[in-house]
């Protein structure tokens, strides 16, 4: 596959690994946070950690819109399916996320509600057209990458005069979350895990551009490298971050130039601005209330806003006691630091946001990294077993 295979080449990986080893200063460590769940996934799925020197550590951030969605909002989605006889359309990721009372969208479907898994908002629109007598509600989640597709659907629904289509909007914003992490006490304090640099999100940036990150680099004096999604992109970006740190720079660099420009996709941005507005604050699971971090649908499009149409109430739900997600999401603790990890909390029975989606730090670690035995210096070396 073009633009994919070349960026997964194992031979190039070895050479890049050698370059990184040469560049990394052995007298210090480099803690690099990948904000995106996609980067977490790539790192674990390809075993990128094994090609990096020990003093370069990946810190997993909260870049998983599934993980950070508060339980109360999932409860709302379930209620929309159960109480209004509506067709509740959702991306596959949300089906198994546990909500209050051990419910989930999958279980709600099993109990008879009309929950439909769709690949695209276009599929939800199609269902609305084909079923004019049924209410079709789309459960919209995701960062800035996934928001323009929702905007298009609303505009198309308006143009077609659809009366039975609405969106339950849970879109959230990346820069706000990064800022929140950087400002949190554990990160600012010395002695706690420090984050030296960031891998900027790949595809959020294709929409919003690299410009929004310039603020962080400047304000918090941390380098940001917008990194592509493939494992070679991650390694090259690590090298660029290491070089910046060695040289005392804190700029925004773009490794993913084949898709990301400074300005991003202006057409998509304009569409989003036309349809959505900022919520004053929004709860992020594990992070608490984050100001100006989420979107709601503007009044002009309120007939497509499920929250208005169906009077969706605010539900406050609490995370499980003992769950260390808040610290793990900030990169302050590791999955293995949580008492619930692997005991009560597993992918089959997730307790907190870090385990619910395969992108979450705990889920990724469980699925891909569990075989690594932590060594005395806190690093993880793969347990290769032995061949008798």
């Amino acid at each position, binding site marked *: *596959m073009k633009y994919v295979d070349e960026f997964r080449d194992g031979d190039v990986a070895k050479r890049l690994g050698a*370059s990184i080893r040469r560049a990394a200063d052995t007298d210090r460590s480099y803690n690099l946070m990948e904000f995106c769940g996609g980067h977490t996934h790539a790192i674990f799925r390809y075993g990128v950690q094994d090609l990096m020197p020990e003093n370069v550590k990946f810190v997993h951030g909260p870049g998983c819109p599934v993980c950070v969605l508060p339980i109360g909002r999932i409860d709302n989605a379930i209620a929309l399916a159960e109480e209004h006889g509506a067709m509740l359309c959702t991306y596959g990721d949300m089906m198994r996320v546990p909500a209050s009372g051990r419910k989930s969208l999958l279980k709600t479907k099993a109990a008879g509600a009309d929950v439909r898994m769709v690949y695209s908002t276009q599929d939800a629109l199609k269902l609305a057209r084909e079923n004019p007598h049924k209410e079709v509600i789309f459960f919209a989640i995701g960062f800035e990458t996934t928001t*323009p597709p929702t905007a298009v659907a609303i505009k198309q629904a308006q143009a077609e005069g659809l009366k039975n289509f609405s969106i339950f909007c849970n879109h959230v914003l990346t820069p706000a979350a990064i800022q929140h992490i950087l400002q949190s006490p554990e990160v600012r304090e010395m002695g706690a895990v420090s984050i030296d640099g960031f891998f900027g999100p790949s595809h959020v940036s294709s929409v919003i551009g690299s410009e929004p990150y310039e603020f962080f680099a400047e304000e918090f004096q941390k380098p940001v490298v917008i990194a592509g999604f493939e494992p070679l992109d991650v390694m090259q970006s690590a090298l660029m971050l290491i070089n910046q740190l060695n040289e005392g720079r804190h700029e925004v660099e773009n490794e993913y130039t084949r898709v990301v420009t400074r300005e991003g996709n202006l057409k998509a941005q304009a569409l989003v601005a036309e349809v959505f507005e900022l919520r004053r604050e929004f709860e992020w699971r594990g992070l608490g209330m984050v100001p100006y971090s989420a979107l709601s649908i503007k009044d002009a499009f309120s007939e497509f806003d499920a929250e208005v149409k169906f009077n969706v109430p605010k539900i406050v739900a609490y995370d499980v006691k003992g769950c260390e997600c808040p610290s793990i999401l900030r990169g302050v603790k590791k999955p293995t630091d949580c008492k619930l990890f692997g005991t009560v909390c597993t992918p089959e029975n997730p307790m907190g946001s870090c385990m619910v989606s395969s992108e979450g730090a705990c889920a990724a670690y469980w699925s891909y990294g569990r075989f690594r035995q932590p060594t005395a210096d806190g690093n993880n070396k793969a347990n290769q077993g032995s061949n008798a």
Partner: protein
Amino acid sequence: MCLAIPARVVSIEEATESAVVALGNVKKTISIALLDDVHIDDYVLLHVGYALHKISEEEAARTLAMFDEAELIEEFEGGDS
């Protein structure tokens, strides 16, 4: 995050703002409502059924070259491996 994959535009339908894209021989109908000026054989970034951005061939080549730069320096400096 946001699983997105490069796909090649195979055909375009202006009226519905949609296109058929191919990944290898797997084809899917998607929306190009978020892009202007899409042509056949363009590569686009596909996410949840929408093309989000065109992929620049030139920049891709430049990035691949960047991966190899380090090796060239190593050879030049007669470095270790």
